[in-house]
């Protein structure tokens, strides 16, 4: 199939959209990194915590200490600047992808879908000749300038963006979202102080409207943006939608990144005029002829990209392989563009037992974990296992070998009252984290006894 598509994919299209995307994305990343550093989050998230929760298989990814982490962020900022300016582009793209992804892999506490999105886009940017048009690299080496790039180099970003939206929309086709308007029914009333729209946010029907509109928007926006006739209206909707999410939710830079990234759906003319305007400011001159970019590695690249998108399309479905309800067990939840779908809060009491004496001690989680980490540990089974192992190690270092760790964890999800989340008798320190289903997660059964009855019987 790829062979048939090849002429279409490799046909030459204007390089302007790709160049604009590079500038915008690099600029947004630079701003995000500076904001992150200015808020002191490098220290808060990667220096002060006593423990970290790396991803399965990436346990070797460790924080680099205070100087190291700040240096890494400065490197990341410089790489983002390189992306934006198109200066030492391949190196910048590789460094940005590696540094950003490394930071994200240190602690899954900080997992956000939009960080994952940034990593994926950064990886794609490594593969495209985004620096051969409207860049400092072209100023340095004028012979590298091209007016056109193969179509796939632009298409992959549209496809990736479309995929993010579409899967975010699919994830919203859930009874909690559509029939209960959860979690928006709980979240929106917290914003009644906002001017103009505030008074409406108390209304249940507004929550339903937001939910249904959100699902419709996510599922259809890639298509409406692709279709020339609907593009302008669709883009206006993009702005409205993301401005609303920025006002209502604490989601940082993400709405703005999406607002500018989706410009890539606009026509070549639009981008060329945009660059023309910018060139007017910078007084740069470009040749009047056309030149195409040829990448010898294209066939291999195309297969790799096909593989990438196959993985992207399949990974969100892996939850089907796990028993139980996805939202409750969170087995196969991450890396699937499931955003804003759950109001899930947990309270976790961990107990460490010395097998020799049989005596048990309760753990003050804050002795080990940050507020964020405690919050995540209380709802995510893989982190519970990691934490149990950390506790076991700590107790071993204090002379209590082979300590057993169990936990009483209560979780409330999308308006269902809190209930026991895992089997409180299981020794979590004896469990190994893996991709296998975790049998000790209790089912989300509406008839489960409330904690009043469950607690204190162990």
């Amino acid at each position, binding site marked *: 199939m790829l062979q048939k598509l090849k002429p279409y994919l490799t046909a030459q299209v204007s390089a302007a959209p790709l160049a604009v995307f590079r500038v915008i994305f690099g600029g947004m990343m630079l701003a995000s990194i500076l904001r992150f550093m200015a808020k002191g*989050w490098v220290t808060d998230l990667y220096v002060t915590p006593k423990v970290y929760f790396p991803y399965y298989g990436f346990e070797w990814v460790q924080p680099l200490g205070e100087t190291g982490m700040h240096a890494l962020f400065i490197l990341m900022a410089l790489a983002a600047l390189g992306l934006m300016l198109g200066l030492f582009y391949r190196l910048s793209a590789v460094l940005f992808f590696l540094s950003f992804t490394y930071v994200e892999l240190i602690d899954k506490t900080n997992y956000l879908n939009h960080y994952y999105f940034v990593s994926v886009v950064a990886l794609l940017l490594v593969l495209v000749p985004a620096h051969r048009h409207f860049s400092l690299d072209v100023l340095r080496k004028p012979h590298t300038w091209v007016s056109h790039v193969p179509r796939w180099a632009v298409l992959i970003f549209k496809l990736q963006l479309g995929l993010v939206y579409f899967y975010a929309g699919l994830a919203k086709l859930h009874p909690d979202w559509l029939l209960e308007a959860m979690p928006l029914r709980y979240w929106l009333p917290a914003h009644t*102080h906002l*001017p103009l729209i505030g*008074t409406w946010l108390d209304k249940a029907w507004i929550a339903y409207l937001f939910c249904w509109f959100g699902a419709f928007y996510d599922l259809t926006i890639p298509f409406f943006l692709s279709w020339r006739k609907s593009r302008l209206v669709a883009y206006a909707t993009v702005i409205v939608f993301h401005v609303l999410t920025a006002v209502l939710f604490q989601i940082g830079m993400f709405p703005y990144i999406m607002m500018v990234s989706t410009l890539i759906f606009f026509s070549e003319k639009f981008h060329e005029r945009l660059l023309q305007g910018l060139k007017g400011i910078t007084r740069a001159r470009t040749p009047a002829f056309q030149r195409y970019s040829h990448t010898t590695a294209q066939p291999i690249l195309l297969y790799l990209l096909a593989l990438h998108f196959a993985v992207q399309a399949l990974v969100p479905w892996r939850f089907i392989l796990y028993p139980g309800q996805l939202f409750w067990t969170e087995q196969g939840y991450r890396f699937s563009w499931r955003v804003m779908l759950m109001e899930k*809060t947990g309270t976790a009491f961990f107990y460490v037992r010395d097998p020799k004496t049989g005596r048990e001690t309760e753990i003050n989680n804050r002795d080990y974990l940050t507020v*964020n980490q405690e919050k995540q540990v209380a709802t995510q089974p893989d982190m519970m296992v990691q934490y149990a192992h950390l506790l076991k190690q700590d107790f071993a270092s204090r002379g209590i070998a082979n300590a057993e760790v169990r936990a009483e964890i209560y*979780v409330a999800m999308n308006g269902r009252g809190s209930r026991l989340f895992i089997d409180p008798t299981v020794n979590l320190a004896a469990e190994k984290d893996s991709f296998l289903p975790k049998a000790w997660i209790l089912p989300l059964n509406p008839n489960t006894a409330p904690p*009043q009855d469950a*607690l*204190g019987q162990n």
Partner: protein
Amino acid sequence: MGFIYPGLLPFSFKKQYILMKFNFRKYSLVALASAALLSSCSSSDGESAPADTYDRDAMVAHYADNLIIPAYATFSAKAEAMHTAINAFAATPTAVNLQAARAAYLDAYTAWQDASVFEFGPASDQLLRTNLNIYPTSSAEIEANITAGTYDLQAAANLDAKGFPALDYLLYNAADATLLEQYTNAANAAKRKKYLQDVSALIKQRAAATYQGWTNGGYTSTFKQAKGTAVGSAIGSLVNELNQDIDNTKRNKIGFPSGRFSQGTTLPDRVEAYYSQSFSLELLKRSIKAEKAVFMGMTTNGTNGPGLDDYLDYVKAPYGQGLLSDAIEQQFDAALAAVNAIQEPLVQAVNTQPQAVTKAYDELQKLIVLTKTDMPSALGVTITYNDSDGD
């Protein structure tokens, strides 16, 4: 405004289709509304709220004006009275003055239990919980400070040598006659009197500074203006600090002494007000009552105003077959009943009535599950300052 969607719920597929059909028109309406939102200057919403909304501003104002400020007014006054009594005792260390100082100390310590929930704004600036109530207190450090005659009570090293626990030691560490001796004929009597006065002066100062912060310092209006439920909002602060306070009550007042954090080995010397021996339970009950009052929006004279419980009812937060607010209220009562069932002073009860003490602990644990899991969830209160996920 053109935001109103005529039907109630676009449930059926047919309706969804209609929604799709009219989508573009709605797009532009939403766009208009949003543009207006962006351009309108922020702060107060001039429109009068529809009748079925909950007046959050009134609730926050009720907390500030009728619970928090009165709590600090009382606490500050009691701390002042305590300092006066302690000065009188230092000037004339008689048995009568000792009793007066002790009574004033207990009064102020009790008033502190009513105020300790509100550890945000001025109280957070003053680090009241840390500066006033770190226990167990270190008798060794206190004695060393007294002997040295010079010390910096603001230093972190002295956190466990000051506050109410230090006063408890200074006023109760021996039988009355021996204690009076410490302040009259003993070697360091003058230095000890000075230390006693310094510790009490510091409590008085911090209590007054906190009260001032709410009244003259203008924090009241800051608090009332901190809308929404994000970190730093009035409601967010209330919910999070209420939870922190219940957690402290559970962990510090019962958990540590009863051996929960020491493999079952009881640590009676970790009870609150250890040296006076008999007040621990009273202080414990007082703090649970205070936490319940905060949850209910109940003033000290028994007026039940708009509180977190009413807010939970407004958002129709369920629990089991009933209301979450009822479940929480009942759990407060269950915790209080369990504490009331402890017969002896806590310092003995941890060893003589372990079952009763365990029961009290477990009831508080159940309470925390409700207040820390279900309540913030239903109110959309965030506990992180970081970006969270969203599209």
